[in-house]
């Protein structure tokens, strides 16, 4: 996987526009079998306080999660992170909501992927396996933590990286174009760094 970096000057409004890619979904490397909490803590570098008090709505593979310690990641998992949402349905979707029974048919029950649950998958094996999960960051989570995540780098397919560059109005870095020209359906780790003022 190639690394590419886009540097923006401080205060550049294009950084805000770049954040939009976070709500549509991006890739992050993770350890197979790690829980949603571990992922947020170790990969996204969220603090425990932020996880407990701000990340109140979590979806794993389109299912609302109540217990982020029992929600285990697998190759191709989709993890969506949101702050508390308004209205009755917003309240229903929150972690540990008293209204959780209203959506029990779709609640994530802590079932992990086959690899994590199978007896032959020990901790050593899981640690040795790196996977890519799709992450979505919404609303204030995107606004608060998005810049940091972008600066550390996200995994995107080359085509989407080009779309992102077009959307925020910057010249496509040569590295991306080279990938496309070669016809490779490859992934790259893109970081968007804002220079200090």
């Amino acid at each position, binding site marked *: 996987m190639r690394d590419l970096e886009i540097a923006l000057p401080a205060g550049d409004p294009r950084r805000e526009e770049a*954040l939009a890619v976070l709500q549509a979904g991006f890739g992050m490397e993770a350890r197979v079998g790690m829980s949603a909490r571990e992922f947020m803590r170790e990969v996204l570098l969220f603090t425990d306080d932020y996880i407990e008090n701000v990340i109140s709505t979590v979806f794993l593979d389109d299912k609302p999660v109540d217990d982020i310690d029992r929600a285990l990641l697998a190759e191709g998992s989709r993890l969506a992170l949101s702050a508390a949402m308004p209205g009755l349905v917003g309240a229903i*979707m929150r972690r540990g909501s008293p*209204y959780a029974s209203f959506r029990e048919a779709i609640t994530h*029950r802590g079932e992990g992927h086959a690899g994590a649950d199978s007896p032959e998958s020990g901790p050593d094996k899981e640690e040795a396996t790196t996977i890519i999960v799709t992450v979505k960051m919404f609303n204030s989570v995107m606004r608060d933590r998005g810049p940091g995540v972008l600066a550390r780098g996200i995994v995107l397919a080359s085509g989407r990286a080009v779309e992102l560059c077009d959307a925020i109005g910057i010249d496509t870095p040569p590295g991306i174009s080279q990938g496309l020209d070669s016809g490779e359906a490859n992934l790259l780790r893109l970081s968007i760094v804002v220079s200090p003022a």
Partner: protein
Amino acid sequence: MDTIIRIDVGAAKGPKVTKEAAGKYAGIGGRALTSTVVAAEVPPLCHALGPENKLVIAPGLLSGTAAGNSGRLSIGCKSPLTGGIKESNAGGQAAQVLARLGIAGIILEGAPAGTPCYLVTIDKDGVKVADDQSLKGLGNYALIDVLKKRFGEKVAVISIGQAGEMRLPAASIACTDMEMHPTRHAGRGGVGAVMGSKGVKAIAINDEGCKTREPKNPEAFKAANKVWIEGLKKHPVTGGGLPSFGTNVLSNIINEAGGFPTNNFKTGQFAGVSKISGETCAALETKRGGLATHGCHRGCVIQCSGIYNDAEGNYLTKQPEYETVWAHGANCGIDDMDAIAMLDRLDDDIGLDTIEMGATVAVAMEAGLLKFGDAKGAIELIKEIGKGTPLGRLVGSGAGAMGRAYGIERIPVVKNQAMPAYDPRAIMGIGVTYATTPMGADHTAGYAIATNILKVGGYVDPPQGRGPDRAVAQPPDRDGSHRFHRHVPLHRLRRPRPGRHLPGPHRPDQRHAWPVPHRRRRHRPWQVHPQDRARLQQGCRLHQGRRPPSDVDEARSGSAAQRDLHHRGRGTRQSVQLVGFLIGGRRARS
């Protein structure tokens, strides 16, 4: 705020205005007042557009005071859309202004002779009703421009557009916001048609010379109001998500849950959601010089609205709300934010319920009238209503009428009212509200919450198998689809005998998921009697449910749940205290 104004538009010598004391209606306001008056004074079997129906307009009990977020206006009547009692409400300036004039409610009654176009003006000197034919046929925006020249920019206006004048069942009633744009609508149930049936085009209210209402115990009121406002500002929803991104902040997460009805409720997720989400909309508004955080009335603390400018930076409409973005967006397969904003503007101008319109356009798309995703076609279809063409009148009659006219089998309505933006197949609990409220598919009723959580009027523990979600959770059909039923009379629901399954199209792999396990025999869920099944299947049938019902989860609680419960309980108590300080100066029991 102890006066009720009755305007009998059917009086022999023209509209008769009567001012009376609130009397038996004293001490209630808003939704409680409008619904109580309708229940007491409107014969249930009357024609919704006839002389016996009444349109009741009431501010909340705290409106006109310094209480934060006390600007909601309730409007009630018998609905021409559902045929039942209806309450619809709106923000904007009208509630505050009415309350400062001391008006607890306005009741429009009777039926006019001929086709008048009444302009009602209310100020501290009294109420006047005049027939002004020059206002006839105006859209809400053009109407407000006229009234602004006559009365200045400090009046609040309640009005109808062409849809209300045509008495179309999807017609709304508009209230002006702080900029005097007619953007806040009591949308649901065709309340605008009832106002049109009374021949009233607009009510202009001027509170010049009136003061903010004073509580009887100012110190206690002030202290309670401070706690209330601090609570709103501190809460992550009312102090964070809503002011930053508006109600449309919900789009992404409802979509994630598979509860974002797409292409006329065919699926529960929309591929283009990130193009129309609250996050995207807020960024666009800021970029174009609009506002992503803005209140719709004075004294709003939450400020969940905004100003949406077009690509040239000119005002187009207010920030489209979640329901509007869903209805005209995902439900019609449209991922163009500018097109959705234009549809919102047209709905506001013609005076239409955006939920009903989005659902109707989607049914029209299902019927082949236009294609899913055809934004231009959708805009033209809504414009037809303003022109009053036969097709426009059909569209303005709602999703049910459109579906029946084009022979569509699956129409997402309950009691003929379009379902809002939460798919009950994914969020079954919300289906309870749709199924049980007398107002049709209405996401704001939701009183199951009160008994489930707040213990108002009794207590039902959802995890114990008696929760309301059991009442509508039906097993899927053989093809994996789900059926949603309307008009389910409670007396036809029965409890199954323990261990026996009702005959029905269960999938074999879900035999153990429905009904509940035997050990819960004391709390067996309500189920539909087999004899009712065929009749019920004539109701709205939706297909392609994304998720089948699964095993009953264990009751869960935890610190987050306790905090949520605590916040809500405290908020309710605080509201009760505010009312207590206002009307009696005593601390209400908590």
